[in-house]
């Protein structure tokens, strides 16, 4: 099939009241290619994709779909859909209580008179899955499916109308290694059929693995585009953040102090069993594992927020009982959960109140009243140390970017002066620049003699930051890797449950 421009954007400018979100951006997508669209949060990636699918109407510029110029003022999502453009989002837009089949065909049921023809739908659904070469029971309610399987349902839904262009909007952000590999396989499949793919992702490794070309946006401006094979990661990062980043990961601390936290024989009813783990002062301990390996559950169990069948906890050598988060906090633990909007922050609170939420008792006036001024001063100081970007302490946290929100969550526990920080995917959905700041924060915490437990699906992050890595597979610790033995090969073997004879 001859390569033709499926999508061509010329001089696209998108102005919102007070902001120029896109400034004179060019973009082309060829048939049968996977085109990586990269840039920091707020660089304009999603704005551009929304212009392409007709969610936004560009203020200036031209859009061509399959060589045909689009009349912008009358361009809508429905129209882009008819022209064969589909988008698959990171967030699940699925009805959890309906099964896979219904989710794929909702709104587009095959009917016989007023009655839904389930047999025909089942057949069509199976055809779609065959096309994706994925085995999945469509009769199961979506809420019982794994994340990767939900993505397949979303993809199947997008493929229903035989699109020529599919936008993958940070699809892999919530996926684990095996799920990502599966997406790559599907991308190859789609490419072979001549479908053009716009691939948006924060994970640069993925761009190198699955994309043919790239386009970089920075602050709404077009930076560069070209063939992925012509550049390396350093060059790409430089384009994305507009400066060079030498050491992605700060040097690891080597000075370890006393044991801060030991857990023994941790067993949960369903998620993990016989887990032993220890953290010393100044140490970053990584926990690696696929989705469903029990990492998050383990972290919550340490924090007293997950049911245990058995297990002992020792804090600084003393056996203690931790039954709920309050006790965990009393013993110097702090948790930075994976879902910061759902578990980490109160979105109705301002920065000050979120920062002081766990340490209110330290800011008392006459032992009863809260000293709001002292709270504000403390919150200001800690957030300045974290280089938080904000207008005012009294600004609601929901207006902050993901990276800055995460800093507020970390600030909360720094203010509480925790000894052990439990971090669950601290860089999820955060742009490159902010990621590096979080990395150096983690290393500073370790240098200050804190213990850190780091859970992350990104192997590179675990390898780059941890002094010791526990690898979990289906609820069990398969291996503990230390020091120079921490390499990608070793961990991946353990991750997949490969046991050497």
């Amino acid at each position, binding site marked *: 099939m001859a390569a033709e421009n499926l999508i061509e954007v010329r001089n696209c400018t998108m102005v919102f009241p007070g902001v120029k979100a896109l400034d004179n951006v060019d973009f082309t997508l060829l048939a049968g290619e996977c085109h990586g669209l990269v840039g920091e949060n707020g660089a304009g990636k999603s704005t551009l994709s929304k212009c392409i699918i007709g969610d936004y109407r560009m203020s200036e510029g031209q859009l061509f779909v399959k060589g045909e110029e689009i009349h912008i003022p009358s361009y809508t999502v429905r129209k882009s859909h008819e022209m064969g453009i589909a988008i698959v989002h990171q967030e699940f837009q699925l009805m959890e209580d309906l099964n896979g089949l219904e989710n794929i065909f909702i709104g587009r049921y095959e009917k016989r008179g007023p009655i839904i023809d389930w047999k025909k739908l089942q057949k069509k659904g199976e055809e779609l899955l065959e096309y994706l070469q994925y085995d999945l029971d469509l009769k199961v309610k979506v809420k019982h499916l794994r994340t990767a399987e939900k993505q397949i349902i979303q993809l199947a839904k997008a493929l229903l109308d035989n699109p020529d262009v599919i936008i993958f909007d940070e699809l892999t952000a919530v996926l684990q290694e095996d799920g990502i590999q599966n997406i790559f396989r599907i991308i190859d499949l789609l490419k072979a059929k001549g479908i053009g793919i716009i691939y948006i992702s924060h994970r640069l490794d993925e761009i190198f693995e699955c994309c043919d070309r790239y386009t970089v946006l920075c602050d709404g401006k077009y930076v560069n585009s070209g063939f992925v094979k012509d550049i390396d990661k350093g060059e790409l990062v430089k384009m994305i953040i507009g400066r060079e980043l030498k050491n992605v990961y700060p040097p690891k601390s080597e000075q370890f102090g006393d044991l801060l936290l030991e857990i023994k024989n941790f067993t949960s009813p369903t998620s993990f069993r016989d887990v032993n783990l220890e953290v010393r002062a100044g140490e970053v301990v990584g926990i690696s594992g696929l989705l469903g390996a029990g990492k998050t559950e383990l972290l919550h169990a340490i924090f007293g927020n997950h049911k245990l069948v058995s297990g002992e906890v020792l804090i600084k050598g003393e056996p203690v009982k931790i039954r709920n*988060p309050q006790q965990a*906090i009393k013993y110097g633990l702090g948790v930075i959960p994976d879902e910061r909007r759902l578990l980490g922050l109160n979105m109705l609170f301002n920065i000050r109140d979120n920062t002081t*939420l766990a340490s209110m008792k330290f800011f008392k006036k006459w032992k009863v009243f809260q000293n709001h001024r002292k709270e504000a001063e403390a919150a200001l100081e800690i957030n300045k140390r974290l280089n938080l970007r904000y207008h005012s*302490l009294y*600004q609601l946290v929901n207006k902050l970017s993901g990276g800055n929100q995460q800093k507020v969550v970390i600030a909360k526990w720094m203010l509480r002066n925790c000894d052990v920080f439990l971090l669950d995917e601290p860089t999820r959905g955060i742009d490159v620049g902010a990621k590096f700041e979080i990395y150096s924060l983690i290393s500073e915490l370790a240098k200050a003699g804190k213990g850190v437990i780091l859970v992350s699906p990104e192997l590179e992050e675990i390898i780059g930051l941890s002094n010791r890595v526990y690898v979990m597979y289906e609820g069990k610790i398969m291996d503990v890797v230390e020091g120079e033995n921490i390499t990608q090969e070793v961990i991946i073997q353990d991750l997949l449950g490969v046991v050497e004879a």
Partner: protein
Amino acid sequence: MSSLEVVEKKNRYGKSFKSFLNEWMILILFIALFLISVVSLPKFRTTRNIMNILRQASFISIIALGEFFVILIGNMDMSITSIIGMTSIYFSGMVANSGVPVFWAILIVLLLSAIVGVINGMLTVYGRMPSFIGTLTVMNILKGIYFIYSKGLPISGLPESFNFLGAGYIGVIPFPVILMLVVALILHIFTQHTEMGRSFYAVGGNIEAAKLSGINIKFISVFAFVICALLSSIGSLGLTSRSLSGNVMIGENLLFDVMTIVVLGGTSLTGGRGKVFGVVIGALFLQVISNIMILMSVNTYWQWVVKGIILIVVVVIDANSKHD
């Protein structure tokens, strides 16, 4: 970034005029409504009428402040009508029929109400019943119990001195008004300036985040129901004192007004947002509307229609203001 402190000072409250308007819309509306009524209705602007409004708003706002705490944590207490009825009947029964001294009778009904609050909270927190259903059930059970006790009849014969609580004056100001202001002031300080008070907002805003930040969410949730029951009970004593008799029907039509007041006061029905003095203003607003309608001889049924429309308008505006 270099002039952070400056930005900090200039933006002390980090709020624009618009969000100020949003938060205190009810105050502005109230002032407008009040001024218009003062100018256009001669019967409205008499001292006696104004004092009347204040007095009538006082106990209902104390009850609404109780409901405010439950709504603040994202729940709902439907049982307040029965707590009000129960308090009225058992207090009057104890004092008039069994000769229990007023002071002890008050303590006993407050204790009973607190127990009902604990039950409401336990059903919601430990029983995991949706609070709407849990408290609705408690409402009916309680109602059954005090109807059995009183056979549905009013209980009269309370001492004249008890009348002071609901009808007394200190100078020109009715005692209930002073009581309401004291209660509101204490609750304002409690919610804004104590650790426990802030915890209600934390629980209502995001219960999971609150839990992971070490807040005892179960205790806070149960406590909200206890505050609600206690304040409802205090409100009921005031209403009982005014008529000097216990009445099973005393709280019957109050639930709707209480909900309207709490929401009018800017409390979010999904929890986490609201102010004590907002609720007080909400109560005054509703009372002024009622008063105007009475002065203009609008009949009771039409008053229900008007109040219903007000609640719809406020909730619709509130729900849509979050969709920005």
